């Protein structure tokens, strides 16, 4: 599982947020199955060469967001309350990405209708439907 995790410490995005984002993404994509054990904080810190407290912070946050659960002495696991988790996480990722795109569109002065047009075109490109 750590193979799918990389952090870019030089990025302006805090490392703990990068870890959170990547674990969520892995859950959404089904790379991390529910009930799967995550590496220990120490192990992941050494694997990524980042501060263990940073990893611990990411784990705490993931636990708060109910993506993982930690039982003392056993370790951290992807929450096992069903397959419902992964679509929910996927929706969150998609919503955040759209949010960024729309904010950018607004900041360059596009009007609502123009944005809708662009959105429809993009939608057609990535999610094609047959013309009626």
């Amino acid at each position, binding site marked *: 599982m750590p193979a799918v995790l990389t952090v870019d410490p030089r990025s*302006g995005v805090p490392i703990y947020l990068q870890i959170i984002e990547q674990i969520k993404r892995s859950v959404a994509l089904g790379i991390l199955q529910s009930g799967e054990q995550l590496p220990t904080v120490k192990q992941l810190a050494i694997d990524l060469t980042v501060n263990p407290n940073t990893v611990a*912070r990411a784990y705490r946050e993931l636990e708060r967001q109910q993506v993982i659960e930690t039982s003392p002495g056993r370790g951290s696991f992807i929450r096992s309350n069903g397959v419902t988790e992964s679509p929910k996480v996927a929706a969150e990722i998609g919503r955040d990405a759209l949010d960024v795109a729309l904010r950018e569109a607004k900041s360059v002065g596009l009007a609502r209708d123009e944005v809708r047009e662009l959105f429809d075109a993009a939608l057609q490109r990535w999610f094609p439907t047959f013309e009626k």
Partner: protein
Amino acid sequence: MSTITISNLRKSYGRIPAVDGFSLEIPGASVFGLLGPNGAGKTTTFKCMLGLARPASGEILYDGKPLAPAMFERIAYIPERSVLYDWMTVEEHVEMTRRAFRSFDPARAFELLATFNIDRRRRVRALSKGMRTAVMVALAFARNAEILVLDEPTGGLDPVNQRHVLSLMINEAAKGNSVIFSSHQIGQVERAAEHIAVMDRGQLILQGLVDDLKADRKIVEGIFPDITFTLDGIANDARVARADRTERVVRLLVTGGADEIAERLANAGAMGVRVLDLNLEDIFLYAVSPATSTADVVAKETSS
């Protein structure tokens, strides 16, 4: 778990103050990065912490207690430059360390020396700068110390070995020990440190969790349609640390509340308002470079 408290530290060499009223709390069981341009006072701070230099005033406490010689059993130090004995072999340095410190593990030291590809029978005189650093690293990390004070612990090392030293630091922190290090390579600090402090001209100018600093500090950029615009008091917002204005472009360095400031900027008539992330290097450079350093800067609006 050792919290180190530095309060109001002052130290001058001649008339030049090296450390000028410096206070800092370094939490234990973590990696603490001390940053600053050359001559900022990092090495002097370390020397005062270890009793190698006598401060003119101020106090340094380890868990509330002043430094005593017996505490060196728990403290390992890598100085900025090589302090090894040229005429002695690497092996003799290991023996020297073994005789001085009860908890030193010579086998571990030899293991680390092997990973750095250093022949234990060689004299230090025959070693390159990077190899000398590696010897000091090997000795320090085999000490089983609770506090590691590392002044430029990767000086002269190649990228592979630099990464190796970072891993050793991470490993110590994971064991619950405290690592305090300085480095010119901000990328290393960014990766390994949880807390940082930035020094400049003997003073503390910034400190905090690396991730919090990154989350808080943003650049908010906006472009106005023409050159005659007012920021409508935005630059006087307490969260705006600095405002640079070039023709129609305004760039605001904000600490916290970037989205809100961005919205205010848009309401003031700015186009293309963007919120940009800052990495540690940017944060560092903004912290140490005076506001007047950019030629085409309009500082904070004086009034509005």
